[in-house]
């Protein structure tokens, strides 16, 4: 990755008007160097003010910085330039989802699905937004592993860009097309893979498949959740739960109920337990429907203990 950044920096220094600034900004973003990524993106957009992929990248950087209104503005800019930009449609749909605006999230994702009906990640995201069971995976032409990753955010590039076909709206820019295609996929998928996350729940059953720690903004912190087909759905679940802790706290306060200790959801195939960790972080534990709620609560309590210890150890 460092070599990539060096090579991209060199290429850009050689040709400052190159559209490869998007690649460089994206590489920096995925390394977590958000300030540098922002500078590169803004500099590039200064030279190419109508470059949709540049704004798409800028939106992802803002999203990673939890600057959601700026991210939304950047994606809206993309859609003003290219109304069918898949990355922007999915990115903004996910943003609405995180903000609890189900109607707008559905509209954006429906639009994205109309642009690419074979995109399973969008189909799954749309089902989640609507609160419907995840659709069965459709058989069809082989698609990249990355395209089947369902995690559209907080690194929208993961699914958004990776799932996007080379956009026909960037005809004069092969480099820009490359910026919105496959090269993003493996790195981001790997970065968001449960195995790459801190091993907080080691020793607990389902440590990386059924237990998830998310922050108040709906971003994954540790653990992981898998769908029935083994794909990682952590980001999607975390986004769905963005803000739940704050709402629960406020409600308990208004209704004089004291601190909330757990939320249990009984679904058709699973029991889901949520528990507060610290600073708005929430633990989510999923167990089979046959697991008694009392037992699921005990398991969640153990996982919560591990999460709190880990959060303290990292100073959160």
């Amino acid at each position, binding site marked *: 990755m460092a070599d990539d950044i060096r090579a991209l920096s060199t290429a850009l220094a050689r040709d400052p008007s190159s559209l490869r600034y998007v690649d460089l900004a994206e590489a920096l973003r995925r390394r977590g160097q958000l300030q540098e990524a922002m500078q590169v993106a803004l500099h590039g957009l200064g030279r190419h003010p109508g470059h949709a992929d540049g704004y798409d990248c800028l939106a992802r950087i803002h999203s990673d910085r939890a600057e959601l209104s700026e991210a939304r503005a950047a994606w809206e800019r993309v859609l003003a330039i290219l109304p069918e930009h898949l990355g922007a449609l999915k990115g903004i749909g996910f943003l609405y989802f995180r903000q609890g605006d189900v109607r707008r999230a559905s509209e954006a994702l429906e639009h994205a699905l109309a642009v690419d009906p074979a995109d399973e990640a969008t189909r799954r995201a749309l089902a989640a937004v609507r*609160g419907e069971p995840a659709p069965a995976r459709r058989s069809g032409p082989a698609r990249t592993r990355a395209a089947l990753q369902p995690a559209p955010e907080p690194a929208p590039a993961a699914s958004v860009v990776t799932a996007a076909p080379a956009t026909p709206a960037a005809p004069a820019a092969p480099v820009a097309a490359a910026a919105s295609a496959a090269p993003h996929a493996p790195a981001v998928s790997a970065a968001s893979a449960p195995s790459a996350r801190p091993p907080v729940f080691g020793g607990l059953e389902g440590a990386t498949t059924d237990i998830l720690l998310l922050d108040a903004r709906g971003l994954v912190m540790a653990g992981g959740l898998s769908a*029935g087909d083994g794909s990682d759905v952590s980001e*999607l679940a975390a986004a769905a739960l963005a803000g739940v802790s704050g709402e629960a706290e406020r409600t308990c306060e208004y*209704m004089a109920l*004291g601190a909330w200790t757990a939320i249990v959801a009984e679904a058709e195939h699973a029991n889901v337990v949520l528990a507060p960790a610290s600073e708005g972080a929430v633990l989510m534990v999923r167990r089979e429907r046959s697991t008694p709620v009392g037992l699921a609560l005990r398991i969640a309590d153990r996982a919560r203990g591990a999460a709190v210890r880990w959060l303290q150890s990292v100073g959160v």
Partner: protein
Amino acid sequence: MSEQLMRALDRLSRVRGVRGSMYVAAEDGLPVAQLLMENVNGKVLAAFAASLARKVSGAAAATGGGRVRFVQMLSAGGVLLVAGVGGELLVAVVADPGVNVGLARLEMLRAAETTA
């Protein structure tokens, strides 16, 4: 229809420990019918019930858990229960910590069926 709803809420209010029950529009979190003790804030309960239902439904759907049927939030001073998730109307209850959740759950699912 509203008589039916009120009858269902009346049955729910007879479960020992229930402080208030209400029907809530799932879409916008506004109360539709309610039977609450004096100090229960119905607007807060309704708004939270709708938001919570939407959030946990999204999370459950994303993870292959299927449709959510019943949600309970436990706290030191009471419990909030939500049923009928997935429909147009939710049934929400606030109750004492010691409420018989199983019994309340049965009545709530029955109340949810009233609107199905």
